[in-house]
């Protein structure tokens, strides 16, 4: 690279005028020797003849050495340095207060060979710190996160040791960075130094995502008026080379009916931020340490491709990871993998007790329920068996997770007791739908505390088929939309539930178990769906029929999802909404289960992650700011008990996908944003970045001066 000679103190160059001294002395010696009449002149003549040439050479050498000595000292005092041509724009004369800004964002983890951009940038920053002149105060800031500097930036000082320590201790983060904000903050910090020269040297990958080109340029505040533009030097840690990168930018996990029960498909979105297409990139799906599926994907240049991998996941909370094959040569390894969490519902076995079987399928009491729970509609997750009331009374309930009593006559005591035991001891779910076979009083007697609330009497809002039945029929009035049974309904789908007409239903007595909770009620206020809790199990009482005898709900589209949700809910196998991932750098609230307290949150490395509580005695907590990507486990504990993992609260933190795009900002636009080429430059190394120093030459010149002095002394003494 072409280099340019500059001087920090050019006034000292006037010292070169002192070259005249040895020349004058030389000439004076030449012209004004002392005359002496000497007897032995013959010997002087002979000696002079012998030495004349050597003496003349020696005199010239002496003169040259003396001139060299003076010139070297004068030039050294002027502190010359060699700077790359490109550095001249930001060069400033004299000492400059300098802010060293080190980009510690995720993209700086980009690896070329075995060394990351961050390591290179940190080395450059340390070298730049060493190159600062003794009269140049400095400050150091580590730029990471949306807030600009992770731990602020102080006023420039001369505490080089502390600044060196800050740089040495700096580590790359997983956060995005706002280089524009950091430069602005650094400029503000420079305003606290009385040194007139101001300079910011930023060490970054110059990724376009970290720089806002529409932002105002950084200005050093000045008490006399508008701010002063500092010299801004951006040291490109990548030294101008392209940084191609393939990243896993999204992972979506959804059930796949074609894969059978607990079959899921994982859709990985692979983005290619490089200029060359990628073919045959391996994508792997892992659960724990086991690789369940592998595939290959071709990704066009500057494009994205999706790869779907299927797997049957174990029930419960499944912790998985999708990974791309690592490129050994270069790349950002951190975005080559993404964790995910799936709450895989367990399989449910349901016993449907048909209280009014019919040879005509559509008249059968269980017809709509069976249809709703059919494997084709539940993905095989729910297996149902239908028995009539008598058969059911003799059947063992052990294999079943849920029992649905559909218009069943009051069950015998033994069956009722069996149901109570299964519900209260085993946590079995019980769904009770009514119908013409139900006598309220007999039912209350037979089922007793299994009923969330006792039946009172039957109410006919309208006779089905009557002329104005449509208008007089009851409709669902108040529905607890947040309950698991109904939360699947978005605002647009709620109409499907609200439009159901119910002609006859049971009214309930006001007394009942304390746990009884009305999930939905008719528009006249009568409960429609009541939840009760008995022991370990739940009971749902639907005050109308599950067939078309009392209501047209079974033929409405909303019946099927509510019934499926109800069965899953009662079996504690509700297909939970998958936990949303958190973003690295953000906070995430963690709600403690009832009666428990969030004890601590463990990061991907197994060490406690930052956590706070809104209130001192609150059971819930807020995790964050989240520092690293990956699985975060939550440990909960009873108020005075030992903490244990709660897999249902675990969450995954994801990286900011824009950090994967390392395309560089356009240099000319960047310079324009920073205040124009006069005050901004982009350099490939910190050496080039030392605006006023460059390659220092003064020490070499002093050495030359010393050598000249020694040479002069040696020649003079001879």
């Amino acid at each position: 690279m072409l280099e340019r000679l500059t001087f920090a103190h050019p006034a000292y160059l006037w010292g070169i005028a002192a070259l005249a001294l040895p020349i004058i002395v030389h000439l004076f010696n030449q012209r004004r020797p002392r005359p002496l009449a000497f007897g032995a002149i013959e010997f002087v003549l002979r000696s002079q003849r012998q030495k004349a040439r050597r003496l003349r050479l020696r005199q010239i050498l002496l003169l040259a050495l003396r001139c060299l000595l003076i010139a070297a000292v004068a030039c050294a005092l002027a502190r010359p340095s060699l700077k790359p041509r490109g550095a001249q724009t930001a060069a400033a004369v004299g000492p400059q207060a300098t802010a060293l800004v080190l980009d510690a964002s995720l993209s700086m983890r980009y690896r070329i060979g075995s060394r990351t951009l961050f390591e290179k940038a940190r080395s450059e920053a340390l070298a730049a710190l060493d190159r600062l002149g003794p009269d140049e105060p400095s400050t150091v800031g580590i730029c990471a996160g949306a807030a600009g500097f992770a731990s602020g930036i102080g006023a420039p000082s001369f505490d080089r040791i502390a600044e060196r320590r800050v740089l040495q201790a700096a580590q790359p983060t997983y956060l995005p960075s706002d280089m524009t904000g950091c430069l602005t903050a650094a400029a503000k910090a420079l305003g606290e130094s009385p040194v007139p020269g101001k300079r910011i040297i930023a060490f970054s990958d110059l990724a376009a995502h970290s720089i806002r080109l529409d932002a105002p340029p950084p200005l050093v505040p000045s008490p006399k008026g508008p701010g002063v533009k500092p010299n801004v030097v951006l040291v490109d840690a990548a030294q101008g080379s392209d940084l191609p990168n393939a990243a896993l930018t999204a992972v979506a996990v959804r059930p796949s009916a074609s894969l059978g029960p607990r079959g899921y498909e994982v859709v990985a979105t692979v983005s290619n931020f490089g200029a060359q297409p990628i073919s045959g990139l391996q994508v792997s799906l892992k659960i724990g340490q086991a690789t369940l599926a592998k595939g290959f994907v071709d990704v066009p240049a500057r494009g994205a491709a999706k790869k779907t991998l299927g797997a049957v996941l174990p029930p419960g909370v499944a912790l998985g990871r999708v990974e791309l094959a690592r490129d050994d040569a270069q790349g950002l390894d951190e975005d080559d993998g993404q964790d995910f969490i799936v709450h895989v519902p367990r399989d449910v076995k349901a016993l449907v007790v048909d209280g009014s079987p019919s040879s005509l399928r559509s008249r059968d009491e269980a017809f709509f329920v069976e249809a709703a729970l059919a494997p084709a509609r539940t993905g095989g997750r729910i297996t149902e068996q239908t028995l009539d009331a008598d058969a059911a009374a003799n059947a063992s309930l052990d294999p079943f997770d849920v029992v649905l009593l559909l218009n069943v006559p009051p069950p015998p005591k033994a069956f009722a007791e069996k149901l109570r035991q299964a519900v209260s001891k085993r946590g079995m779910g019980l769904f009770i739908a009514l119908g013409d076979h139900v006598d309220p009083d007999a039912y209350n007697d037979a089922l007793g505390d299994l009923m969330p609330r006792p039946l009172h009497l039957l109410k006919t809002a309208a006779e089905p088929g009557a002329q104005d039945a449509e208008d007089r029929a009851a409709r669902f009035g108040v529905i607890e939309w947040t309950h698991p049974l109904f939360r699947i309904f978005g605002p647009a789908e709620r109409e499907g539930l609200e439009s159901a007409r119910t002609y006859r239903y049971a009214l309930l007595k006001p007394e009942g178990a304390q746990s009884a909770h009305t999930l939905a009620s008719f528009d006249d206020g009568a409960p429609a769906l009541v939840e009760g809790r008995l022991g370990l199990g739940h009971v749902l009482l639907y005050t109308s029929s599950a067939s078309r005898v009392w209501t047209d709900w079974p033929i409405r589209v909303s019946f099927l999802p509510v019934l499926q949700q109800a069965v899953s809910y009662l079996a504690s196998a509700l297909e939970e909404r998958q936990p949303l991932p958190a973003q690295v750098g953000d906070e995430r609230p963690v709600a403690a289960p009832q009666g428990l307290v969030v004890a601590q949150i463990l990061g991907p490395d197994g060490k406690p992650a930052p956590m706070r509580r809104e209130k001192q005695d609150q059971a819930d907590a807020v995790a964050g700011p989240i520092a690293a990507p990956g699985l975060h486990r939550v440990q909960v504990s009873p108020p005075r008990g030992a903490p244990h993992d709660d897999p249902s609260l675990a969450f995954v933190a994801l990286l900011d996908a824009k950090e994967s795009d390392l395309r560089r900002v356009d240099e000319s636009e960047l310079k324009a944003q920073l205040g124009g080429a006069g005050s901004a430059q982009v350099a490939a190394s910190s050496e080039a970045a030392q605006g006023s120093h460059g390659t220092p030459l003064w020490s070499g010149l002093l050495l030359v001066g010393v050598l000249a002095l020694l040479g002069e002394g040696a020649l003079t003494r001879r």
Partner: protein
Amino acid sequence: MLDPALLARLGPLQVRARKVMEGVLTGLHKSPSYGQAVEFSEHKEYAPGDEIRHIDWRAYAKLDKYYVKRFEMETNLRAMLVVDASGSMAYGRGAMTKLQYAAVCAGALAYLLARQGDQVALLLAGDGGPHAGVRGFVPFASSPTHVQGVLRELENAAGRGPTLLPAALDFAAEKAPRRALTIVLSDLFDATDASIPALKMLRSRRHDVLLLQIHDREELDFPFDDPTRFLSMEDDRQIEAQPRQIRESYLAEMRAFLEGTRRELARADVEVQQIATDAPPDRVLLELLARREAA
């Protein structure tokens, strides 16, 4: 011993020379016996009136005739003092110039020789005068008046012009046809390198030749530091030099010259004594006399 600086302050040459002579005499245990020369010349037949004691009885025994031995006239030693009065002998920034030092030595020797009845001549070598290389000449004699003449001539001598010592030595050989002691006082700085052959030639004529080679201390040590334009004292040559830079070379040249001179003349049986003008003259002469006596 007489310090040259002190000696220089003693006034006229007569006084200085005498002081030196006295110093020399004090230093000698006995007077030098410059013996009378009595040399056999011929036989002649005895004739009445001849000294009977001179009859050669051995010749009578052989020839049976009386022969009387005849002798050369009994005479004292003849000494020719040749003092180089060339320009280079005028150098000297100490107490005395080389010429002044040579004059003191020559004067003292003249005193000493005349005192014991020897005949002394003085030849001032230099340019000009009736003969080439002879600026002044005082013929042989031994009277005190003569010594005063010699001293006067020495005192009036001024160092100037080129060294014409060879011509002067030729002249000395002519003036002293008989065997004589020739004492040459010179720095021998001769651009033509003819002085040493001339001294050898003198010796070859059976003259007893003694060279007192006189130099200034600065010529021997070359103690100059500042840049200097050296001017020749005998002609118009000059050279600018950095003395420190050529000192080594100069001293080597000087050593080679002194060594060469001593070696060359010793080979021709010419005695050489090399003297620096800061040495006390009486001690120099005393050593000279002592050495000759021993020889």
